[in-house]
């Protein structure tokens, strides 16, 4: 791995983060509506506040300054990790995100586990089986799972397993049992993605010359499948890791709402609803940072697995 390769990847990562900050800033400030007026209207049915008091509030949050000045202030603060305080409840944005992170990590990890088990098994069995009907059935599953709306899956699971059979809790984040339904809901579409990518590269790997060589050496079918093909097919699956992480984060918005779990998704939905600009921006930049880090890690691991990549660039 060369130093230039590393430097280029790092610069690209910083560029993506800056772009995420700037785009979110521009979009949030182009949104119609006035966060201060929303907050001051006292919920849905309070009396509106007189204009002069609204102006005082805008001054408190720096919203009365020219947009360019606000951008500069926020960018400088963001460099130190300071995204300001929530307009709705005064909480420090950084601590709000840190507080919301563990439950989302928990649900994402559980969802990823479901995704790998479901996707991996489907892909392995589909490429291993000699029965065409089973292969076709298994290969149809991912397309079906991808097309099912996540919230629908969640609601059906709640209705059946929580309200119908009282097997699992419907809401909350207490204990492993409460993790099952959300993890399945989140893991199905992500697992479908894993299955599609893995099945395709497994099929490809099985056609490679080294498989023929291995077969000639007398390695059994299962051995070829698991030891040789899977190892090589796992590499393309690793490439879509960033996409998978994105899927999990986006899915957490729906899953946390349906299953009433705390986390980044709920934080985001609530903040968007009341135009809590600092919180929304903090979450956007945080999510971008996660993507960047995951992709950076993939980029850095790749040359280790396949030396041609680092040398060629």
């Amino acid at each position, binding site marked *: 791995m060369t130093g230039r390769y590393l430097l280029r990847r790092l610069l690209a990562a910083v560029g993506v983060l800056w772009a995420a900050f700037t785009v979110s800033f521009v979009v949030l400030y182009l949104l119609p*509506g006035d966060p201060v*007026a929303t907050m001051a*209207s006292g919920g*849905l049915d309070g009396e509106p506040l007189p204009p002069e008091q609204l102006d005082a509030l805008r001054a408190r949050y720096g919203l009365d300054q020219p947009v360019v000045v606000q951008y500069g202030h926020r960018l400088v603060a963001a460099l130190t990790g300071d995204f300001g*305080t929530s307009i709705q409840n*005064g909480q420090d944005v950084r601590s709000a995100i840190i507080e919301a992170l563990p439950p989302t990590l928990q649900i994402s990890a559980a969802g990823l586990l479901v995704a790998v088990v479901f996707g991996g098994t489907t892909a392995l069995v589909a490429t291993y089986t000699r029965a065409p009907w089973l292969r076709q059935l298994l290969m149809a599953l991912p397309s079906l799972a991808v097309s099912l709306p996540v919230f*629908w899956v969640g609601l059906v699971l709640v209705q059946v397993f929580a309200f*119908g059979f009282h097997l699992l809790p419907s809401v*909350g984040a207490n204990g492993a049992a409460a993790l099952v339904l959300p993890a399945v809901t989140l893991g199905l579409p992500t697992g479908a993605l894993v299955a599609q990518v893995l099945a395709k590269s497994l099929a490809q790997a099985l056609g490679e010359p080294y498989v023929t060589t291995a077969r000639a050496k007398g390695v059994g079918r299962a051995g070829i499948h698991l030891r040789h093909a899977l190892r090589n097919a796992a590499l393309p699956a690793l490439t879509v890791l960033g996409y998978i992480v994105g899927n999990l984060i986006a899915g957490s918005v729906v899953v946390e709402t349906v299953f009433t779990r705390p986390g980044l998704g709920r934080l985001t939905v*609530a903040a968007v609803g009341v135009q809590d600009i600092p919180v929304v921006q903090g979450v956007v930049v945080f999510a971008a940072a996660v993507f960047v880090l995951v992709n950076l890690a993939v980029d850095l691991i790749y040359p280790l697995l396949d030396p041609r990549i680092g040398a060629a660039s």
Partner: protein
Amino acid sequence: MPRSLAPWLGVAAVLLSACGATPAASTADPGVPQPGGTLRFAVSSDQGCVDPQQVGSNDTIYSLRQVVDSLTDQDPATGELRPWLATSWEGNADASAYTFTLREGVTFSDGSPLDAAAVKANFDAVQDLGPRGTLPKGYLAGYTGTTVEGPTRFTVAFDRPNVQFLQGTSTHSLGILSPATVAKSDDDRCAAVVGSGPFVIESYTRDEAIVLAKRAGYAWGSSLWRSPGEAQLDRVEFRIVPESGVRVGSLQSGEVDAIGNLAQQDEAPLTAAGAQLVGRPNPGIPFGISFNQATPLGGDAAVREALSLAIDRAEVVATVYNSQTKPATSALASTTPGYADQSTLLAFDPAKAGAVLDAAGWLPGADGIRARNGTPLTVELTWFSNSPANRAAVELIQQQVRKVGIDLQLREKPISENTPTLQSGQFVATWGNTTRADPDILRSTYSTAGNNYYRLSPGPLDALLAQQAAEPDQAARAAVVAQAQQLLVQEYDAIPVVELTTVLGVAADVHGIAFDAGSRIQLHDAWKVQP
């Protein structure tokens, strides 16, 4: 998102009705209250703040109302103010100062005494309360200070007559917090507060739950309650469940005991499962249409009158709203003190609507839309997507008024644009409401001396609205308020359509959940049949 989930949930509910909850028997006579137990109440949102003086969302008020006591309580049946923390009070001649006598021996849950100094600290701090303290600030408009005359006696003074302050003392917004809480910053108060109420906050997990525990030794309840002593329930868990389908399912399956924010389509499955539906119309300004009278169409009295005559309120209510909802019959909702029935002026009469428009020169065109001097009778109605019923209601009204030749164009905006829209005057007509259990809401909404968002011209209404704000005699005030309502409806300054009604779904074995005068809940007397 809830809107788009509803149809799916309907499908799911039908598919899965076979494994639904078994209906529980509803008892007609609840019998003697049984103390103890935990009430689990699912609400849809969390405002992210547990300071009753700062919150405005009903979902959060439901829990925080139980944590603070107020100086007075308002009888939901009569609108009268009754003793709570204050045993008596009197105002001066021009309603600009009020002297209260407090009950003795009241303490906050941190042990500090609730005395005149504590009340003064609360009212003084409201002035410095940050952006979220708009409700209490409104009640204390013109506040000049509180004079402590003794441990249990104090006077609150204003620089102008302020009759609505007294009703304000009955609300959660002016609920009394411990001096230690009051001394904290508004942001810190959002995380934890200490009150003197029948329940204390046991834990608060943002976006998940607010858990209340009974305050042992509580003995200073409102005179409107069954007893002044401790609450019946040991604990109350307010769970935040944003998805309406999950809320309804939770109640049906017995995972929770009560839920808020019920839609019309939720009613049948809940009653089928044996749940009770308890509702009360919200006081204040009912849902209806108000005009920007500085615009040509909004300023045209014939257009306003015809629009009012063309709306079939009964059909709107039956088609869109909960079964307990009623058509609006005045500029104030029927549960507002001082409400006066104006229903004769609010009849559905499409023939008369046509005649009014004919007389004003608005004549039917080829496409059925009326026009005058080549200008079509197209009225733009701005509405806000804060309540799921709003879209269905305005779309039905659009169809109704089309029949008399009025082309109502609907313009949807997010609720965050409500105040900016009204301020800027960039609207012809708006659809909205305001909850408030005092008729002074008419003054803040329609007086030309205030914000005057509807650009009314100064007139006799202003004098009436100012007069009621300074009239300490309740009967005399009601008479003035009645005149103001008649004038508003007669001039079609407001076209009231439907009374927003709060409806809760409550399990059959839960009793005694009471609505206060603002249609928020009071849980001191609530109890649950113990197994």
